């Protein structure tokens, strides 16, 4: 690994000042499960690494505040997967957090880091999209709230501006019944990057939010207001038509080693049907 300077700010203000001072020469270090790999293979060559793990404002706690679940930027996947609030209100996010990497990875990897990397295969992106999450970012000019659908641009690129630091991710606690599920497809059991990820959330009003990743430059959200996916008695043909529209934005890369485009497109439909069935079951049990 190349040599770099290490900074461990003790406050958010200090971290923001370091980001101002070093600009694009600095990289933020949260869990490190992606950054350390990139430092070693040379695809990231910062001269300064800023470790955000001791910043109290990025508190690793998960709390409910004014109708929103607030997940501090330092919160790791293990804690999200096990959290009682998350399991009760945001089960698809708990399911996604519990399949990221291995136990060792989940004990370090943060939700904030996962979305800031903006990998199209990020497991946590589809649930955050279906739950309509907001990214809270602190910058030199104050705090901004970015809707998650306006956050992802393409692999490794988000709408954060230079100097900004994600401090928390917020999810509105649903005000009515909601059934949700997360599905993924990997090459092998155990620990692997996903070839397809997909989440759905079906509300009591009949609106279905469906999001998927790993089939294009960024994860995609589709909102179905037709009521077809939410209708347990709708025919498979009717559902297939909605899926066609929902998956119109999928454009899997032909160059991926993990799975070919035809396979991914076929699996989207399979995972979509499974996730909808599970979400409907859960909605009925609410």
């Amino acid at each position, binding site marked *: 690994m190349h040599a770099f300077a290490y900074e461990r700010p003790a406050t958010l203000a200090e971290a923001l000042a370091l980001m101002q001072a070093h600009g694009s020469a600095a990289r933020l270090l949260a869990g490190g499960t992606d950054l350390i790999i990139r430092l070693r293979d040379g695809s990231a060559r910062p001269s300064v690494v800023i470790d955000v793990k001791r910043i109290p404002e990025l508190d690793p706690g998960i709390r409910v505040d004014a109708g929103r679940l607030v997940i501090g930027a330092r919160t790791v996947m293990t804690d999200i997967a096990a959290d009682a609030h998350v399991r009760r209100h945001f089960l698809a996010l708990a399911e996604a957090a519990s399949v990221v990497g291995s136990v060792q990875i989940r*004990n370090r990897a943060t939700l904030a880091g996962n979305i800031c990397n903006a990998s199209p295969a990020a497991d946590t992106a589809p649930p955050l999209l279906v739950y309509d999450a907001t990214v809270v970012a602190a910058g030199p000019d104050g705090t901004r709230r970015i809707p998650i659908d306006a956050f992802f641009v393409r692999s490794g690129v988000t709408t954060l501006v230079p100097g900004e630091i994600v401090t928390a991710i917020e999810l509105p606690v649903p005000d009515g019944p909601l059934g949700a599920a997360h599905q993924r497809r990997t090459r092998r059991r155990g620990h692997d990057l996903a070839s397809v990820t997909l989440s759905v959330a079906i509300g009591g009003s009949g609106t279905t939010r469906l999001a998927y990743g790993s089939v294009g430059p960024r994860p995609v959200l589709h909102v179905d207001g037709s009521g077809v996916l939410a209708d347990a008695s709708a025919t498979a043909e009717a559902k297939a038509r909605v899926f066609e529209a929902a998956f119109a934005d999928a454009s899997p890369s032909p160059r991926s080693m993990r799975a070919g485009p035809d396979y991914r497109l076929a699996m989207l439909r399979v995972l979509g049907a499974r996730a909808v069935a599970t979400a409907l079951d859960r909605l009925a049990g609410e």
Partner: protein
Amino acid sequence: MTQTIPIALTVNGRPRSAEVAAHHTLLEVLRDDLGLTGTKECCLVGECGACTVILDGRSVDSCLMLAVEADGADVLTVEGLATDGRLSPLQQAFLDKGGVQCGFCIPGQVMSAHALLAHTPHPTRAEVEEGLAGNLCRCACYEQIFEAVLSTAEAAAAADEEAGR
């Protein structure tokens, strides 16, 4: 110029301090600076788990963190499992069940299993498989390793029962 940073941590119950390079991983410092070569270096990308140690009670890949990040932490490595020269019951079970072939992956497997049993003393087979999913074994001793973990949990449960706990 390489920045070095003083760190203080607890390793296998003993306070240790070191001057570490900012860009050195915990794995490198354990092996090269502290002489604890039980923790193995293999893929260096968080895929194989050969470098697994327990940091503040949680298993982590030591190749995926900087040593400075462990400043103030409590680290348990495979060298910390035996007491008075006697293997821990879990380590002994790995030997008894034939889970150790070439042995290269075993320190990592044992540390993952140790962390699993600390959090889940009575795991199901599925929980053992999931708990060890981040540890690869190229000799493919998976069955024997799962048996070793399950039998350790069973023996501990039987001993608890005997003692009326």
